């Protein structure tokens, strides 16, 4: 095992870690805003990839930047629909099981709809985030570098949005205390729509970023959906920096585990970590509340 391999594994681990972190952030946003777990979001990630790749790039032949913008717009609208159709009507019901079931079924619907619209065969988008950079013996794929950079931008942008804009601050208010937020004149229902739209757009960013790693298929986001959830738990659920740290830890640890374990056990590592944290430190690394 030489240093070059180690660096390559670290970089690809970091890239995956950022993806898990984004998924964790997306869980956290919806959880804080609505008090609900959105179990359909891995399907939203897939839908974002299908919209971008299947419809706008391959179907309509748009340029990549235009396709990205269009995918964001449509996913944002879908986010508003989900907020109005599922989160807002179901979040005040007696048990949160109703809304969780709602999001799970929504995930099924999205998956089957994708299969009907775009067909069951996975496809790749040639030329999208392809290529490698070579530094001496180390070879790093462009996709990994772009994933890291874009994720960092999203994380920084989101922090700026939540801390310095009126709408972002209102989102934090709604997350902390819905009654007090309404008493400040904040339209809580509308605010949840905005949060869900933002989270759906983050889903499409994730979906578009992981196309070079997994191609576009109905199962492309299954494992990262669950690992993103683990990222949230490991970092401290409901706390954005926690989701980021948790994601990066999972990404790097599972990639380095390949050096000592057979590669088929890669996926096991993150779930073992999840269970360990639930047993030993259920509040997560940075979590404060029990």
């Amino acid at each position, binding site marked *: 095992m030489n240093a070059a391999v180690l660096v390559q594994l670290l970089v690809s681990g970091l890239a995956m870690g950022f993806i898990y972190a984004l998924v964790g952030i997306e869980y956290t946003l919806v959880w804080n805003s609505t008090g609900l777990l959105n179990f359909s979001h891995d399907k939203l990630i897939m839908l974002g990839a299908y919209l971008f790749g299947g419809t706008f790039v391959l179907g309509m032949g748009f340029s990549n930047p235009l396709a990205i913008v269009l995918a964001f717009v449509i996913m944002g609208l879908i986010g508003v629909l989900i907020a109005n159709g599922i989160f807002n009507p179901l979040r005040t019901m007696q048990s949160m099981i109703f809304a969780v079931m709602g999001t799970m079924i929504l995930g099924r619907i999205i998956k089957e709809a994708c299969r009907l619209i775009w067909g069951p065969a996975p496809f790749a988008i040639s030329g999208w985030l392809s290529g490698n950079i070579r530094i001496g013996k180390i070879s790093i794929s462009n996709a990994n570098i772009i994933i890291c950079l874009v994720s960092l931008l999203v994380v920084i942008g989101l922090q700026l949005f939540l801390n310095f804009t009126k709408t972002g601050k209102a989102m934090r208010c709604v997350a902390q205390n819905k009654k007090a937020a309404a008493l*400040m004149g904040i339209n809580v229902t509308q605010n949840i729509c905005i949060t869900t739209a933002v989270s759906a757009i983050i889903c499409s960013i994730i979906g578009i970023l992981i196309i070079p790693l997994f191609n576009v298929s109905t199962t492309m986001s299954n494992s990262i959906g669950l690992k993103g959830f683990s990222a949230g738990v490991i970092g401290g659920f409901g706390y954005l920096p926690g989701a980021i740290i948790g994601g990066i830890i999972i990404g790097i640890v599972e990639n380095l585990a390949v050096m000592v374990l057979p590669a088929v056990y890669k996926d096991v590592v993150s779930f073992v970590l999840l269970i360990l944290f639930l047993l030993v430190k259920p509040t997560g690394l940075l979590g404060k509340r029990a």
Partner: protein
Amino acid sequence: MLKIKGIDAYYGNVQALKNISLEVGPQEIVSIIGSNGAGKTTLMNCIMGILPVRKGEILYKDRDISSMKTHLIMRSGIVQIPEGREIFPNMTVLDNMEMGSYSVKRSKSEMKAKIGEMYDLFPRLRERKSQKAGSLSGGEQQMLAIVRGLMSDPELLMCDEPSLGLAPVIVDEVFDTFVRINKEKKMPIIVVEQNAYIALSISSRCYVMENGSIRISGSSDELIVSDAIIKAYLGG
């Protein structure tokens, strides 16, 4: 200004308010007193649209607001400072104050002037401005809650249990501020209190609630010397 006509409200099947009627005129301080569970906070929540009203109407400036959404009621000029303060603990004092004026469009200089005006009301908040609101003492949190409520220049202020859990010195400071706001801004104020004596002493009129309905109402000067009130609420 505010006219409540015979409202009923329920938690599930349990009736919490029975045929409540109440009136608040311009520029007056009205207090609502009563023991724990009498329905005072429920009444506040009904006015703000947090709890639906089943019967009766709530007229604010001659408009029925009983089926309006909370944020729209707030935007029409009624501000409630909720029981238990309910500040945003993970935000700074300054951010909390800015959120209080979420419904108002202000330029940077107007906002600065408004915040300065609030610091004059409770100078202690100026020292705490960049501290997380959750780290403040109970009294400071109550001051912040009041200031946050005032940030939107309300036309009617409702304060729910402002004395709850506060040291007597701070209670006096808080109630002096209410009197001052009422005088300077001609702002009508509803004070809901378990501490009957202090509520009666600053208000012009008072409603006494018991088991979800209004038992007694009248001028505070008369109630503060009436035997029934002294026996039940003033420890006589």
